[in-house]
């Protein structure tokens, strides 16, 4: 993709700049046929989550893995790396320091990717609404598909959220990655507004 001779990855040192790709994300239009439907069915039934507990909500993901709630029966499994996972769960509050890692992890995930935001902190800041270091709403920085309200939501609620996400994907509405690529400038401007030391690439593959 052309980047209109704009200088990119300026936050990195000259030596590091060569290590990272300068291409920005592109919108991938979904196929309007049965193949896309099949792909969506496959995506909906293998939701692999990124094992990155960003806040206190991550504690609710542990019982999901145990035999009592057993998320594996829905095809949900945790993965250790963003490159293998398709669902990013924002577990509650995110400080500015964490948000930097969230952005990097989110960008490293392969398309199509979905975001589930747990708890009231991701919606409006929750009990940290006036904190100097906790963001108020996550959807200003990365696109969110499903919000699960609660402080914290119970594992049942999270399973219900996964059910809703499945419906979204089957209906072809899980277009977070395209939304991110489409409004890339806006998302980056919001991220740069609060991440003051931008010593990371502008976009991570």
């Amino acid at each position, binding site marked *: 993709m052309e980047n209109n001779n704009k200088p990119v990855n300026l936050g990195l040192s000259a030596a590091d700049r060569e290590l990272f790709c300068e291409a920005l994300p592109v919108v991938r239009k979904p196929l309007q046929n049965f193949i896309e439907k099949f792909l969506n069915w496959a995506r909906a039934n293998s939701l692999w989550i990124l094992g990155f507990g960003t806040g206190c909500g991550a504690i609710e993901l542990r019982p999901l893995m145990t035999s009592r709630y057993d998320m594996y029966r829905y095809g949900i499994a945790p993965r250790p790396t963003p490159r293998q996972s398709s669902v990013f769960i924002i577990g509650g509050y995110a400080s500015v320091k964490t948000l930097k890692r969230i952005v990097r992890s989110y960008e490293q995930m392969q398309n199509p990717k979905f975001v589930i935001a747990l708890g009231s902190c991701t919606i409006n800041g929750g009990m940290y609404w006036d*904190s100097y*270091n906790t*963001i108020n709403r996550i959807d*200003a920085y990365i696109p969110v598909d499903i919000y699960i309200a609660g402080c914290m939501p119970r594992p049942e609620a999270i399973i219900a959220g996964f059910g809703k996400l499945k419906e979204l994907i089957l209906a072809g509405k899980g277009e977070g990655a395209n939304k991110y690529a489409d409004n890339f400038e806006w998302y980056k401007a919001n991220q740069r507004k609060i991440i*003051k030391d931008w010593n990371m690439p502008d976009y991570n593959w």
Partner: protein
Amino acid sequence: MLEIINRTKEKFRLTDLKKQRSDLVFFAVPRKEAVKIITYLRDLENFTHLVLITAVDYPELNRFQLTYLLHNYNNAVSIGIKIMIPRNKAEMDSIHHLWAQAATYQRELREMFGINFPGSPGIEENFALEGWDDIPPMRRDFDTKAYSEKTFFPREGRISYDPREYMKVKLYPEDKEE
């Protein structure tokens, strides 16, 4: 506990002595003697555990109060040492040579209160706030709500209705039109 305090009193100038519990005593010491007293307590009185270093901001006095909490495992007693330092020249001697982990507390204090500890390892590095460019957030003149509203994107609150009026409109829409 009393013996320890008495022995320390003989050697150093302790003020503001306050017995919080039978096993916890606080006293204030001048800034210049603080490291000496802490070293004495650690090496000769067996206060081998640095529990915490914390600070309190008193803008009305134009002071920071630093508190060092030390613990003695032999007698199971604790001592809190309070030091007042001026707010405009917030600087304190580092004690990282006594306890290596003190450097972490000092990094945190520098970031959260802007208290400098010259010579402490990694004191210039970011601790939790990466690239912070405002006044240190734990100072009391820092307005955290104003900063949050300016920096983040607050979501508008929900609309609330008077239940009586709301249900009247909802249940009897005809009445409203009249």
